[in-house]
């Protein structure tokens, strides 16, 4: 008891011990502090109170230091240690036991090694494990190697062990610094030095190395390399200021500096966000389920927008955009890694590309059409009825007073244009394929193609003088000598025959194959007949005055569709399915070959100037060739939905027309300028519809009036119509 109390008192005195006690207190908190501990504390406190002149706190600390859950107060009072108790119980000398225990704990194995082997191990690993988990004092239970007993170390023992471990005296009361050592030499005064060695030279002269070092420092100070701390601080501040020093960089803007930026291509700016990117977009911008899944399926690069539109009820609800940083980073990469190139992009207003349409006023005269009451269909001026079957071909006399029409009902009818009265009807043996009025105004002749024959008719209309003169002319022209191997035979109707008097038939030219088309030369002496399926004899040129025929081609040139004479030059145009060949008749050579980009040319017409040709084709196209420009079409018009049957150009006015199976007749303005530099102006002007579709055919032929802006069309509904 007494020793314990004294030890406590000493502990309070030594400040260095407080840390130890604190550490042991910390250890103590590991134990479960129960009511027992409290009672413990009470008892010790009462005991120690007589010594304590310190505050309550300290004493509390003390008491806790010694509180132990496992020991009852009685046991505690039996201290100094549990070991002693064990000693008596198990008959061993106290000295030895204590030492061996302490040594074992500290780890001086060699000291007590001889004893440790003697004892057998009790219990196996499993027992240890169970003990470990069940016994709260397991950590301070050691086995005495001499007795083989388990000993639970007390708090004091632990403290002693800790002190030894940390290299201190085992006894905490030992103060190594305050020991009164007996002074052994103080009483004697030494008169001789311990060593009689004379002092070194170096203790009298200054150090060379120090001088060198100091010299270096002085030099570096002089050079400004070495600085005092205050200088250094000042410098650092200046440096920092310099970093943030901004001034008017562009005070003297020099335009010459931009020379290097000549090749500079500025990076395109970021695209500005649209409505879809809004935090509260209109509902139509939000993704539907399909759109969303489609967006998720497409690759990142292919997505049209790099985000999913989302609607938030308030600004507070907007989360951080996950890819914001990535987007900025991608932009940075674009700025310095992406190759740049200037691309010329036509920034054209699409409306500028459309050629400026001339005013309708400028395009006149075109057909001044009257609209019917319902304003939907065009009323035609005159309708010529009388034919019983489709009217294949119509032709006008050079002055525009009379009209001839050939029909599939094997008749040829002559009409007065203005009144629509049928003047004459010729009944023939076969279907009439073509009719053509001689373009020479001084001759009254019409060529009619019937079967294998071309019949020349003097209609006997108009000026009597011309009619009689024509007959005289025909009589004058001598009949040719009959030669063998001729392609055609000319025969004359005798003046007393019925055909001559009643039908006014004058001459008949018989061919080997059926004649499909006739076209006159402008002078009216030559005319060309196109035979269908006759090989190299497809085109035959007849001379009226000499009643002679010639076959210009020795080789077949394909399926000839139609032939035409140039209005004022000795050229012959021959249209096959795809090409138009232009032959110079004088030189007898091919002068040009026009390529129509179509499959099957149906008809052809030539501009009165002779440099422009139009062709209609069965694949709905109308080509305008400017022969000065190229052999390819200058312009292709596709205004009609079905095959184009015929085309015609007005002799006086800048008009041309085309008829098609879809029932429309398109009239276009086609101005050809005398100025070679100016290309023809082609503008569609009118669409006429009048004929009734029969057997899939509608308007078949169209002819312009020679000097009025009138258009005549013949149709499959066996009528002829005049649009004026």
């Amino acid at each position, binding site marked *: 008891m007494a020793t314990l109390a004294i030890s406590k008192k000493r502990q309070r005195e030594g400040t260095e011990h407080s840390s130890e006690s604190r550490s042991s207190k910390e250890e103590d908190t590991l134990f479960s502090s129960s009511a027992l501990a409290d009672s413990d504390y009470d008892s010790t406190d009462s005991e120690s109170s007589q010594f304590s002149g310190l505050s309550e706190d300290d004493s509390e600390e003390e008491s806790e230091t010694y509180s132990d859950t496992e020991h009852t107060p009685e046991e505690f009072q039996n201290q100094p240690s549990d070991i002693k108790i064990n000693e008596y119980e198990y008959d061993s000398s106290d000295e030895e036991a204590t030492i061996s225990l302490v040594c074992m704990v500290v780890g001086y194995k060699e000291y007590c090694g001889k004893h440790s082997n003697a004892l057998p191990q009790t219990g196996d690993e499993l027992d240890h494990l169970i003990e470990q988990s069940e016994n709260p004092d397991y950590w301070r239970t050691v086995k005495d190697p001499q007795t083989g007993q388990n000993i639970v170390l007390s708090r004091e023992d632990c403290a002693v062990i800790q002190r030894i471990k940390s290299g201190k005296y085992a006894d905490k009361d030992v103060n190594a610094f305050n020991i009164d050592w007996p002074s052994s030499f103080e009483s004697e005064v030494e008169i001789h030095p311990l060593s009689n060695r004379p002092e070194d030279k170096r203790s009298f002269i200054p150090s060379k190395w120090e001088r060198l070092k100091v010299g270096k420092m002085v030099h570096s100070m002089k050079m400004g390399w070495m600085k005092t701390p205050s200088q250094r601080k000042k410098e650092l501040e200046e440096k920092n200021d310099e970093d943030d020093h901004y001034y*008017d960089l562009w005070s003297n803007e020099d335009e010459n500096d931009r020379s290097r930026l000549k090749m500079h291509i500025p990076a395109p700016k970021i695209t*500005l966000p*649209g*409505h879809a*990117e*809004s935090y509260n977009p209109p509902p139509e911008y939000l993704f539907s389920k399909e759109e969303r899944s489609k967006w998720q399926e497409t690759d990142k690069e292919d997505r049209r927008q790099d985000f999913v539109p989302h609607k938030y009820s308030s*600004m507070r609800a907007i989360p951080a955009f996950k890819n914001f940083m990535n987007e900025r980073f991608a932009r940075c990469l674009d700025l*310095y*890694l992406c*190759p740049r190139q200037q691309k010329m992009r036509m920034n054209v207003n699409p409306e500028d590309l459309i050629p400026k349409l001339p005013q309708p006023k400028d395009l006149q005269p075109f057909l001044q059409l009257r609209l019917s009451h319902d304003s939907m269909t065009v009323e035609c001026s005159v309708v010529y009825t009388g034919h019983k079957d489709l009217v294949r071909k119509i032709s006008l006399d050079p002055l525009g007073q009379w009209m001839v029409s050939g029909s599939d009902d094997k008749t040829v009818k002559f009409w007065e244009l203005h009144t629509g009265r049928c003047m004459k009807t010729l009944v023939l043996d076969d279907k009439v394929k073509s009719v053509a009025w001689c373009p020479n105004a001084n001759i009254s002749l019409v060529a009619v193609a019937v079967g294998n024959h071309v019949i020349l008719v003097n209609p006997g209309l108009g000026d009597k003088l011309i009619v009689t003169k024509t007959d005289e002319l025909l009589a004058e022209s001598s009949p040719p000598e009959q030669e063998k191997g001729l392609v055609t035979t000319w025969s004359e109707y005798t003046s007393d025959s019925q055909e001559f008097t009643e039908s006014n038939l004058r001459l008949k030219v018989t061919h080997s194959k059926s004649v499909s088309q006739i076209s006159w030369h402008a002078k009216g002496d030559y005319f060309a007949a196109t035979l269908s399926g006759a090989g190299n004899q497809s085109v035959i040129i007849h001379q009226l005055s000499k009643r002679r025929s010639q076959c210009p081609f020795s080789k077949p040139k394909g399926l000839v569709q139609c032939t035409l004479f140039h209005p004022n030059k000795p050229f012959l145009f021959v249209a096959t399915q795809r090409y138009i060949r232009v032959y110079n008749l004088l030189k007898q050579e091919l002068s040009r070959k026009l390529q129509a980009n179509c499959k099957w040319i149906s008809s052809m017409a030539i501009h009165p100037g002779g440099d422009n040709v139009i062709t209609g084709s069965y694949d709905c196209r109308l080509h305008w060739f400017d022969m000065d420009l190229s052999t390819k079409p200058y312009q292709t018009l596709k205004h009609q939905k079905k095959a184009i049957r015929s085309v015609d150009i007005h002799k006086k006015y800048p008009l041309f027309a085309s008829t098609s199976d879809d029932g429309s007749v398109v009239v276009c303005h086609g101005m050809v300028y005398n100025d070679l530099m100016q290309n023809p102006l082609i503008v569609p002007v009118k669409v006429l519809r009048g004929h009734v579709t029969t057997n899939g055919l509608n308007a078949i032929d169209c002819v312009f009036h020679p000097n009025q802006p009138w258009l005549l069309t013949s149709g499959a509904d066996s009528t002829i119509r005049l649009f004026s």
Partner: protein
Amino acid sequence: MGRIKRKYEAGAATAYVSRKRALKKLQLSLADFRRLCILKGIYPHEPKHRKKVEKGSTAIKTYYFRKDIQFLLHEPIINKFRNFKVYTRKLKKAIDKGEDGQAKRLRQNKPKYKLDHIVKERYPSFVDAVRDLDDCLCLVFLFATLPRQQSAKFQTIQKCRRLSVEFLHYLIAAKALRKVFVSIKGIYYQAEIMGQTVTWVVPHARGFQKPTDVDFKVMSIFIEFYLSMLGFINYRLYSSLNISYPPQLELPADKHNSLRDMSAEERIEEMLAAMTQSLVPGLKSIDQAEVDEFPATGDEESGISEEIRKEQQSRSRLLKLFCNTKFFLGRETPRESLTFILRNFGAKVSWDPSVSAGATYLESDETITHQIVDRNQPPAKKYMNRYYVQPQWVYDCVNARNLLDVKDYLVGVVLPPHLSPFIEEGEDDYVPPERVQLLNRAEDEGKFNAACSSGFNV
């Protein structure tokens, strides 16, 4: 006889250099070359005729202009790069040897470079710099929102914050903001500076997640250049408005607890960031330039001038948009964005002093006209003489250049869609019905205004 002409000795083949050759020529590592390219604004060019440039090889390469590379060759900053390389080597050696003093001394003399001359070189005139401000602002504003992390140096982030706040202050003083747009990515602003349209986007102030696939090194090089560029631009802009740079504020007496334990510099920074106060003007005084009115001549010109006049009218209306209003912001609203916008158009703004520094009046102020609330319900204590509106109202008003009807934006009301002001629909494009409505309303008002003005003239 002339010289024999050989292939690839002239023209496109010599005008371009591949990157590898450029590196060899410049004697730089790839990293240094990239840094140099970023700082100097050099980018690869796509040759017009690749075949000629490739000289027969089919490998896909990036090509630079030979002249660009030659120009880089004379850049003084290259030497700094080399110095820095030497510095890192020395420092590493010192650290590895444990020579602390040496390392410290080296660190003190760390080579630094300045980018002034490069800024001037890339943008010979000030307008050039303003024209190229978009990317700069986007990045600086993004970095200003970054937290203190490993991603960027704290000094850089701080500087970004400072410069961006300075820039916003300029815009407020110049009243240069024109359009705003709240998108899911961030808030877009468009301003008109020196006749140039500048657009930038600021991310929403939310938590920051460091993305994994972003190389912050590259971005920090960009930021390095952009910071010095923005600094000079700010200086110039401030001097153009006759405001002293760096910006100064007249600090009010310390009445807010939040600022009491700060140094004077920090306090100024805080107050600047709050953006509620105007800056102190500089010494010089500049006269306002005004354009005289010319009588219209001819038919076409009158049409143009009419358009200009209309635009001017709407602009002046925009600048006075919030002139006679006093706002109070709720703590849940995007405070920085709203303060910036409202102050731009002449409003007074404040918030609860506990939210942040810079509040100028309290909620109990009776003169407050609008209180911005982003909750489902208005606050418990309601004042009768003010509107409780949602923040979108402010953004929509700016874009419409008119004070919109508050009724559609009151607290708890389902908001009308927020439309982008940057879209100008063509004839064939789809126009959302809300926009059609808005345009019609604007047209009506324009007519009304015209009628009013003509009425006054009579």
